[in-house]
């Protein structure tokens, strides 16, 4: 570990810290339906959309109508994307003449982008036409993020309102999230990326003559625009197979920092918006503090584990004291790779600038564990906030009883109904992750896809289902996922991870919105104090740890101890 490494990490978190408030306040205005400084420009466009689609923006929906609208919109998005992928050969902007995407891969990919996961069982530059990338994948990058934001905002309103029958209008929230937040930010970010040297063209490729006289075809495309929303919307799906380790996606240390900043910005700012919208900014800061504690700890552990390197290699003289550099871009090194790895997994982004599978046991454990904690640190755009709020409800429920009152969070009593839906939501992660991992670990056809023997192989499967269930999309590497088994099971996992979580969350929102907001008193459990932050961190760690410790013990943990013991597989 070096001072410079730590300075890079500190600089990033500082940048996020100072920019959380302005964006948070801006988004609160957007979702409260207030006018903003770009309203003169966008309000007519927004009104035009409503007129075209026949949506009355003033008419709010109850939780069920909101949920059905969200599901209907997602289904339509899935069908459109699936059709584009399956018909790619007949559609325009296909300069390299790529064939139609096969059914199971198209299913997997459509689900993957619909659920904001961006798990990629293909190499983008060798599979997807420009049309598929732009009109298919990038569109979902926007709207899947906007959908997440809409759900989070609906839950936020449930806390802000008292005795309310409605949560807002899904179509309005979706439109405003895209139009006022994602689109402007993506345009600016894309232009900055172009300035940093990312290609943005409709050309297919350039052919270059290498130094030894050979011919090399270098893929190009509309990269900067997709890169921008890939990070801002915590999607993570790269244009290239190598994702952000590819120099066209991530050319410099500065672009690397901007990449990480872009993925963190909206998710963290949305937590601030939450505080603003429920009328207690301290609550926003308290949630951000819990996120920061766990995320920074994650970065630190990866950085430490990677810079320690592998004692087996050191003993063989293969490591010049530089720590573990396997699978890392030399342009970024351990610090920036650790930072990227922790943020991309804490966030459900899933873009990578290093191969997580090549990290040391502990270094690989952390990204996996960060996803298993529920993608709440700060999690995907929107989905992170509502996931975190579910944990806050659980924390308040377990510990809140200890102050001698029916637990309440922000003046809303947490009772049987909320607990029922919260447990339904929380159950989904262990069920699909552990269930599918255990089946795959026993199924010869699934085990055949593994790239490495020993516990690392189990880690590969565990990571794949973890990533899919958490809607993260990053891969451990090593596992050949483009098989019928993984394409279909991972797609099911992604669907459940997204919608089997979101629907109970909206049900919670409906139940909470209807409740009277109790004014706080000296007998109320204060939820904006360091004590609450500690409690929330503890609950997230203990719940996550208890669910996944046995599985992790057989994967990365045993890898770690085996490495220390000098054992190889």
């Amino acid at each position, binding site marked *: 570990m070096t001072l410079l490494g730590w300075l890079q990490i500190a600089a990033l978190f500082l940048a996020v810290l100072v920019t959380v408030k302005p964006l948070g306040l801006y988004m609160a205005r957007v979702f409260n339906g207030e006018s903003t400084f770009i309203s003169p420009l966008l309000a007519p466009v927004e009104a035009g959309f409503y007129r075209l689609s026949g949506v009355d923006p003033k008419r709010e929906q109850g939780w069920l109508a909101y949920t059905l609208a969200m599901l209907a919109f997602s289904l339509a998005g899935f069908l459109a994307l699936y059709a584009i992928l399956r018909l790619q050969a007949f559609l325009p902007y296909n300069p390299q003449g790529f064939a139609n995407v096969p059914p199971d891969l198209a299913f997997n990919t459509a689900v993957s982008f619909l659920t904001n996961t961006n798990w990629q069982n293909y190499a983008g530059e060798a599979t997807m036409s420009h049309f598929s990338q732009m009109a298919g994948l990038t569109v979902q990058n926007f709207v899947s993020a906007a959908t997440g934001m809409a759900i989070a905002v609906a839950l936020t309103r449930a806390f802000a309102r*008292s005795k309310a029958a409605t949560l807002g209008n899904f179509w309005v929230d979706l439109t405003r999230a895209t139009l006022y937040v994602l689109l402007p930010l993506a345009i600016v970010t894309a232009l900055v990326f172009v300035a940093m040297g990312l290609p943005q063209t409709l050309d297919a490729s350039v052919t270059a003559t290498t130094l030894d006289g050979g011919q090399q075809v270098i893929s190009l495309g509309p990269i900067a625009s997709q890169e921008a929303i890939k990070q801002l919307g915590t999607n993570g799906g790269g244009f290239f197979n190598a994702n952000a380790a590819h120099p066209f996606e991530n050319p410099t240390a500065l672009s690397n920092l901007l990449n990480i900043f872009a993925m963190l910005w909206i998710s963290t700012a949305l937590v601030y918006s939450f505080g603003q919208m429920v009328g207690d900014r301290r609550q926003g800061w308290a949630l951000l503090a819990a996120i920061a504690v766990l995320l920074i700890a994650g970065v630190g552990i990866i950085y430490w584990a990677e810079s320690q390197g592998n004692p087996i290699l050191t003993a063989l003289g293969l490591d010049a004291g530089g720590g573990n550099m396997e699978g890392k871009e030399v342009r970024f090194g351990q610090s920036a790779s650790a930072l990227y790895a922790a943020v991309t997994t804490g966030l459900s982004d899933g873009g990578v600038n290093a191969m997580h599978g090549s990290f040391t046991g502990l270094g690989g454990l952390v990204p996996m564990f960060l996803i298993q904690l529920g993608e709440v640190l700060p999690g995907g755009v929107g989905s992170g906030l509502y996931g975190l709020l579910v944990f806050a409800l659980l924390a308040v*429920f*377990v*510990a*809140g*009883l*200890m*102050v*001698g*009152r*029916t637990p309440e969070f922000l*003046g809303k009593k*947490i*009772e*049987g109904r*909320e*607990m*029922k839906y919260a*447990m*339904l939501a*929380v*159950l989904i992660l*262990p*069920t699909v992750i*552990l*269930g599918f*991992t*255990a089946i795959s*670990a026993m199924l010869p056809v699934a*085990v055949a896809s593994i790239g490495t023997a020993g*516990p690392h192989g*189990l880690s590969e499967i565990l990571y794949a289902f973890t990533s899919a269930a958490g809607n993260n999309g990053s891969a451990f590497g090593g596992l050949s996922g483009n098989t019928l088994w993984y394409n279909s099971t991972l797609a099911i996992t992604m669907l459940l991870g997204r919608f089997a979580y979101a629907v109970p969350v909206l049900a919670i929102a409906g139940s909470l919105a209807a409740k*009277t907001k*109790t*004014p706080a*008193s*000296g*007998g*109320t*459990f*204060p939820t904006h*104090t360091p*004590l609450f932050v500690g*409690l929330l961190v*503890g609950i997230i760690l*203990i719940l996550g*740890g*208890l*669910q*996944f*410790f*046995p*599985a992790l*013990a*057989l994967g990365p*943990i*045993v890898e770690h*101890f085996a490495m*220390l*013991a000098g054992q190889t597989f």
Partner: protein
Amino acid sequence: MSIEQSPAAPLRRPGLLDPAILGPATLSAFIKLDPRQLVRNPVIFVTEVVAALVTALFLRDLLAGNAPGFSGQIAAWLWFTVLFATFAEAVAEGRGKAQADSLRRTRSELSARRLSTDGASSETVPATALKLGDVVVVEAGELIPGDGEVIEGIASVNESAVTGESAPVIRESGGDRSAVTGGTQVLSDRLVIRITAAPGLGFVDRMIALIEGAKRQKTPNEIALSILLSGLTLIFLIAVVTLWGLAGYSGTLLSVTVLAALLVTLIPTTIGGLLSAIGIAGMDRLVRFNVIATSGRAVEAAGDVDTLLLDKTGTITFGNRMATDFLPVNGVSGTSLAEAALLSSLADQTPEGRSIVALASGDYGVPTPAAQPDAVIAFTAETRLSGVDMGERRIRKGAVEAVLRFAGVTAIAAPAEFSAAVDRIARSGGTPLAVADGERLLGVIHLKDVVKPGIKERFAQMRAMGIRTVMVTGDNPVTAAAIASEAGVDDYLAQATPEDKLAFIRKEQEGGRLIAMCGDGTNDAPALAQADVGVAMQTGTQAAREAANMVDLDSSPTKLIEIVEIGKQLLMTRGALTTFSIANDVAKYFAIIPALFITTYPSLAALNIMGLASPQSAILSAVIFNALIIVALIPLALKGVTYRPVGAAALLRRNLFLYGFGGLLLPFIGIKLVDLAVTALHLV
């Protein structure tokens, strides 16, 4: 009059681990193993199923001649886990039933003399055959067969069977003392009673139902907690079942016995096993405070109360105005005024008069005069003064205007000093009484509603607990404000009518607050019904008792404060043991996971941070610890976590440290100790 009917013996309060309770409880613990009954408690039900499964495996090992020692011991301890849980519930029930049983015994033996509809004839029927609206007659020496309302007659009644208070009380038709309780004894005269509760629905019956686990309805909060616990159980079930597959990949074949052991140690058996006991003990604690709740929900609501509506009279003040000061005028000495006041009050047997005598002879040291007064002038509504004539002296005390008239002084001509004193007393919410000797004004007595000692501190505690206190009084706003500030309540409702009370409660509830109040009169009934926690006095009317969700047998208005504390304690105990239970799991993983995989991956020995002797001893120790901790926590579940009236933040910090952090650390030590014992005894 039947001799064999005698009221229940005074109640014996059983100790925490009274052998008289433990014996039957042990038997009852076995009866409760019935899966049909246990299914109400999902965590323990799962434990029982797993225990049965491991028992089957043990039998298979036994028959097949495989070493059955390990699976046998695991099976035994799993059964103990279930038994300890049912035992906890049985003990809690046993304690509560001590009182309930004695009540029930008297009632089941009761007979009633039911009047025919025309009232002409009566027939003797068992009390259990009485219906709502039946009219019965009860004479001196007989027991009242059921809850009801006196419609004719007046009698003294011994209610000690219910209240534990031996002094008889008066019950009469009409007014606020018409309600009678089944099982109490009429000592004199004859009462005609209309039965207002069908058998099995009287409040004593409802209390009995709250204390008996099998019939007990789960409270909303218990339901929510049960959902959490069931959810956790499901999560661990998934984690353990899938572990079999994950282990299979690594080439380890895990036996069902060890997976069962892992499952039971992980699922929240501690809180699952004690949950019901905590609820019952909470009700029982309430009964010990002589309060009977008609639903568990009300007790929980008491913990949530935001605003306490307290009647001024009897709760905050003693209820009678008392002399607190003598203010002499016209150069009269304090002692002379005190002496005159004492003389004027010697024959005055009102509480005010007695308080004047007490103040004069106490604080002022005026001796009781030897001479008898020549004439005693009694207070009348017309003269509004009283006093004595002694020799030359004509001493009078009374309302200021009346005394001035007596002394022949007009209000304007009264000395400034006198008027100032009168004003000052009135402004402070007190009542001034003037004293004159003939035409000479001696001074003013300050009568005031005296706030009970210690009540101010009590309210300060309530404030720290986050509870607002609101005083309700019929006094005018000036008096009310003065008493409110002296007592330290947060707000007051002056010149309050029952309608005002109801409106106030509605307004507060509209803002999301929970309200508790107590009352006794029929006109309190609507407010009692509207309040989230309504406590009726045992001495109150049947209407009030029906409207309320709790009845205070001591009829003490300050009881509300204790009820709130009991409610909070109940919730806290649940929260503390849930936190403890979840925190416990961390150590169990460190005991069991390395034990399961040490053969496949020897390097996992690094996780055995407790240094447990062998894989088998580690697993057995975790299971034993998990079972024993339930027994160890039974006293805590029954007694409840200590409640301190400090703010929520301070409470949380303390309990989180104690039960969260403690729950994390304790099992590391506990499992290690059990492992040492298991190894020393060569159990594996």
